[in-house]
């Protein structure tokens, strides 16, 4: 049996799917993909094959699950178990999540809540409650415009590398807002679909600039000054050498080095190792795309179906037409604005569709359904 809150959310989700079934598009290569859904009782149903998408949606309305998923892989037998599916290929998929970026704002808006005494604290959780010393503590990861801006930035960098370095045509790349705090980028391209796990891992390391070697960039400890000048990458070069060189030439050292020409400037910085290493590290951090390394190589994973609802926020996963102008706190907010009364135990401030709510503490509020559901799903409120 589901509790009252869950029942209410389930009904709201059902209404959404009923109203929007025509807006949910069938994924490409429908019959080759594995589908799955997570029901509100917590059970994950996987290894489902779909031959008629509207039948599948009818079933989704009937079941009203917490989450709906489709594989990024194509199989001969998507409904069989993993070993018998017969893999044919996979989209090249990337995941960017705010929680992995370790942003400073997390300390401002993430909280912990003691399950025993209800004490609420800011930042990362302590081992024991500071008030009652109990160790049963809930963690609340929240998000703000800074988090959403940062993930968007990572998505833009990734898109750029995919187009420039990997030569993937823009029309083969779909950027989705994940429905919570991040983005999914999916490449559907016959050249890349056959890559195996290990090959996908190489691509991940490339995006993360992981273990990039100075020597291969042209910085060899054994070089004389003139050799160094010759080997230093130029900022008009493609790939990592060009991007990193560009970062260096734009970097204002505040010293006389700034007036030198490109290669001479870099060589000058290189002559002071500690300074060079510091700038190099900065360049890598700011240029790489901070994707989740475990997602891309895992071809057996299923991803949230575009236009379906996220079970932690009640927002939809949606395709971003233009990533630059995309509004992550407005466009994915798809549930109704009908008023819904809730009892809030506690919640930090949050902004949806341009309106700021909270902070609230032990109060009963009537908020638009999308905002109430957001708090209900975070277990910060109950139906009043």
């Amino acid at each position, binding site marked *: 049996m589901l509790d009252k809150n869950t029942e209410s959310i389930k009904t709201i989700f059902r209404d959404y799917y009923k109203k929007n079934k025509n807006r949910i598009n069938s994924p490409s290569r429908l019959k080759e993909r594995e589908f799955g859904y997570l029901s509100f009782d917590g059970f994950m149903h996987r290894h489902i094959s779909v031959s008629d998408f509207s039948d599948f949606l009818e079933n989704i309305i009937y079941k009203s699950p917490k989450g709906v998923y489709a594989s990024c892989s194509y199989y001969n037998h998507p409904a069989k178990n993993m070993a018998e599916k017969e*893999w044919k290929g996979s989209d090249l998929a990337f995941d960017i999540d705010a929680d992995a970026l370790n942003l400073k704002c997390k300390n401002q808006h993430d909280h912990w809540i003691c399950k025993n005494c209800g004490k609420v604290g800011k930042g990362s959780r302590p081992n024991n409650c500071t008030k009652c010393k109990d160790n049963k503590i809930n963690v609340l990861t929240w998000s703000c415009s800074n988090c959403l801006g940062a993930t968007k930035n990572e998505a833009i960098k990734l898109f750029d590398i995919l187009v420039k370095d990997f*030569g*993937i045509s823009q029309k083969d790349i779909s950027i989705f807002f994940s429905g919570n705090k991040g983005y999914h980028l999916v490449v559907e391209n016959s050249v890349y679909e056959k890559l195996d796990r290990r090959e996908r891992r*190489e691509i991940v390391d490339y995006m993360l600039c992981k273990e990039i070697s100075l020597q*291969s960039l042209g910085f060899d400890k054994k070089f004389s000054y003139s050799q160094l000048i010759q080997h230093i990458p130029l900022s008009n070069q493609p790939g990592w050498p060009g991007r990193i060189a560009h970062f260096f030439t734009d970097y204002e050292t505040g010293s006389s080095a700034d007036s030198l020409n490109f290669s001479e400037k870099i060589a000058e910085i290189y002559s002071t190792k500690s300074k060079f290493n510091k700038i190099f590290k900065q360049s890598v951090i700011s240029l790489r795309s901070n994707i989740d390394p475990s997602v891309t*190589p895992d071809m057996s994973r299923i991803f949230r179906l575009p236009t379906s609802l996220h079970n932690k926020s009640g927002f939809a996963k949606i395709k971003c037409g233009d990533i630059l102008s995309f509004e992550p706190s407005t466009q994915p907010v798809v549930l109704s604005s009908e008023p819904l009364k809730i009892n809030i135990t506690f919640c930090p401030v949050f902004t949806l569709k341009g309106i700021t709510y909270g902070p609230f503490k032990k109060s009963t509020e009537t908020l638009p359904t999308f905002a109430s559901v957001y708090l209900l799903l975070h277990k910060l409120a109950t139906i009043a």
Partner: protein
Amino acid sequence: MVDIGKEDYAKYPFLPETGAFVKTLNFTITDLLNSDYNILENAKNRIIHGFKHGISPTSISNVEVEIFSFPLALLLIKSTNNSYAISKFALAESKRIENFLLNERQSVIPKLFEIILKIQPIEINDDSIDKWAYKIPLNSYLPRSLHLRGVNWRLVNRLVDQGFVYVKHKELVELLRSEIYEMIISKLDETKIPPSLLENKSISKTIKEIQNSMPRPPLNRSNIVFTGEYPPCVSKAIEMIKNGDQVKHYGKFLMTTFLLRAGKNVDDIIKMYPTSLGFSQSITRYQVEHIAGLKGGGTKYSVPSCKTMKTNDFCFKTEACGSIINPLQFRNKTNMVKKNARQKH
């Protein structure tokens, strides 16, 4: 037009032109044997030199002799029916080809690589990136670079642009190593031994000579057949490979050396890699054969010690391992251990 001549036929037996040339001359084996040049002698030397030095001779004194000694060498080595010697020969021949490729004239290289790679590497004539000679598509680069050691092979350390990876001439040859080997193997597969061949006295005498100088295989597989349960580290590697997980080099190395000692052959081991997960058969084969000592200098690798496995973070020690120092000593004593445990309580 690329001008490919007779000398190239001698250097690169995989060229379609070489095959066509041999056909037009329409020689029979008897013709070959009766020719003024000692083709049989040359074929024999090719094989034996390869056994000794790991590479077939790279000097060409007579182009025709070289051209014809290759198919004859295929017949001879195949007649020995010894798979170890056949692999040794294929490896020595591919080393010879690599050697030629490294010193090849610029004008014919793209054509040669196109035949090997099935796609044309694009030549770079740009001064700003002059250290690179060619670029090849990313999806041709990745499966080949993955099994090469050294940070310079990692994608992140490459110039990658518009879906192409830049490589130097020497690197291109290295990337294609396993393909070159495969081409020799497929030539061997195509070779049919005419039943009358062995009736020829000089042929059967030469085969004997070859057999006498054949290297001994590094492992005597027949008398050690492992029947028990695998040690935890080996089971772990097998399980990971079956699931398509990335297995650290040492894990694969342990599994391969162990299974070879346990009486499995190269093919059995290759079959353990699920093709459905996109493992490239030929690369797996290359790696397994390398460890089996069939490739790359023929070093015989032994099963690494438990200490080595620990240092390389691939030891999954359980009670059953006890105090063994090499995974080969593993005997499952779990039942015994359990019995003792029960007695205690």
